[in-house]
């Protein structure tokens, strides 16, 4: 059984159709990234899956439960789920360790407080008041609170916003570690390199619809798209698109009799593909 199963999800706010029929199937242990511009229906979709919002139509099963009709099962369900929201700036008068320890008490099978604090790289800040943390440190605390209950399913909403490159790398390593524990992760992010580094599969959502679901390497026909070979010929920069870039390079090697000036062979990045996808389906601005 899939951890997340969504069929025909719809949600409108008055005249605005935020989500217009979303389908998702995410098996256990997968890291799944949801990409999309602001206003695409990303946040609405995720918040419905998290049980924060109601829906207008569609079927949802999250860990075998419908978040809208949990009733008395709500606490058992939440015990198995971790949520890292976009921003929270509460509890400024508590220390890092007090906060993590307190949240630990909410769950039936929590992780170890010190291990979680170390995993998010806050071991030097355990006694610091939250209001004295930097933005990036605060974000790492958010993540710590999301994983303290050892969730089977983790929602991560823009987790590395405000991180410096080093902290992002450390965070990615943490996610890899969670993958190793078998945690299913639904990640929303603006950073395409992050999706590429972490996600097994990505979905692009735009105008309330899923445009495509694929692996990062294959999204938008990326794996089979033409490579761009460029080089300098005298004062001119020349380029050529090709399905067989190796033969182009071989030809150029002969032509130049050795080293080709300023040679580069590139394939479209995930970002190029993504921008093309969301640009191509923008029928209406929301």
């Amino acid at each position, binding site marked *: 059984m899939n951890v997340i199963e969504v069929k025909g999800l719809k949600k409108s706010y008055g005249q605005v159709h935020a989500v217009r029929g979303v389908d998702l199937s995410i098996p256990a242990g997968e890291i799944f990234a949801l990409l999309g511009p602001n206003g695409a229906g990303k946040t609405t979709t995720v918040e419905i899956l*998290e049980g*924060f919002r109601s829906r207008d139509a569609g079927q949802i099963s999250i860990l075998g439960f419908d978040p809208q009709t949990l009733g008395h099962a*709500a*606490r*058992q369900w*939440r*015990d198995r*789920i971790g*949520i890292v*929201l*976009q*921003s*929270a*700036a*509460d*509890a400024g*008068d*508590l220390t890092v360790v*007090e906060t993590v320890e*307190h*949240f630990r*008490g*909410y*769950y*039936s*099978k929590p992780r170890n407080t010190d291990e979680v604090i170390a995993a998010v790289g806050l071991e030097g800040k355990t006694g610091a*008041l939250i209001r004295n943390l930097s933005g990036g440190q605060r974000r790492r605390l*958010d993540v710590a*609170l999301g994983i303290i*209950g050892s969730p089977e399913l983790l929602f991560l909403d823009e987790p590395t916003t405000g991180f410096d490159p080093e902290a992002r790398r450390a965070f990615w390593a943490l996610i890899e570690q969670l993958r190793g524990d078998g945690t299913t992760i639904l990640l929303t992010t603006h950073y395409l390199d992050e999706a590429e580094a972490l996600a097994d599969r990505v979905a692009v959502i735009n105008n309330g619809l899923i445009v495509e679901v694929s692996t990062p390497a294959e999204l938008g026909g990326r794996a089979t798209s033409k490579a761009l070979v460029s080089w300098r010929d005298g004062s001119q920069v020349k380029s050529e698109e090709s399905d067989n870039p190796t033969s182009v390079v071989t030809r150029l090697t002969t032509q130049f009799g050795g080293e080709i000036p300023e040679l580069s062979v590139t394939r479209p990045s995930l970002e190029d593909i993504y921008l093309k996808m969301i640009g191509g389906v923008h029928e209406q601005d929301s």
Partner: protein
Amino acid sequence: MNKIPSALNLGIRRGRLEIRQFARQRESVVFTLLFPVILLAIFGSVFKDTIAPGVTFSQYFVAGMIASGLVNTGFQALAITIPMERDVGGLKRLRGTPMPASSYFIGKAILIAVTMIIQIALLFGFGLLFFGVEMPTELSKWITFTWLVLLGSACSTALGIAFSIVPKSGRGASAVVSPIVIILQFFSGVFFVFTQLPTWMQQLAAIFPLKWLTQGMRSVFLPDSFAAQEVAKSWETGRTFLILIFWLVIGIFFSVRKFKWDRD
């Protein structure tokens, strides 16, 4: 597999956490706890008369201060701070955990009850030492006092949580809540002798719990002879109990049904 902790257990943990957070906000600790003492000092110095044989204004005012302390510390504080917690995303985060709403409410109730006990102790201390306030001697009055504080504190907590759905934002909450509390205090006979207020004011005040809390506290701190000067010529203790229970039920109902965890 371990069990999820009970709602009561988590409520007590939340209560401890709320107290710890409150204790670290020094300015608000000092102000919250000493506010009734400051008011007693001001009013006790201005009004030196006795309002009835053997009843000083300070004595009358202590009853009003304890009653309105319950409203300030519970209703007013919660109706302002909960929207602030909501604004910064703290409530939404809590909602995403297995902690039930009832634990959050229990935590608030514990915070308010503990704050009230300290506030009353300070008021008694200063009242005895500097303003000649006399403490009741009969056990029955202390029994009345105890249930009034407990029920009043619970009622004020529940109504504060319920009213937290009204302010749209934390920034505007104070502007919505504070005038209501101040007007209610004037109408309910906290600052003035209740029976000297215009009848329409008395009747309006009689709908809300503060008037009854204040009257109940008068029954504790004023001699029984003063009961004849009340509107009903008696302390109406039974009716006070029922009206506070009624408002407690209203408060719990709206807190449970309508509590807002998120801004939108």
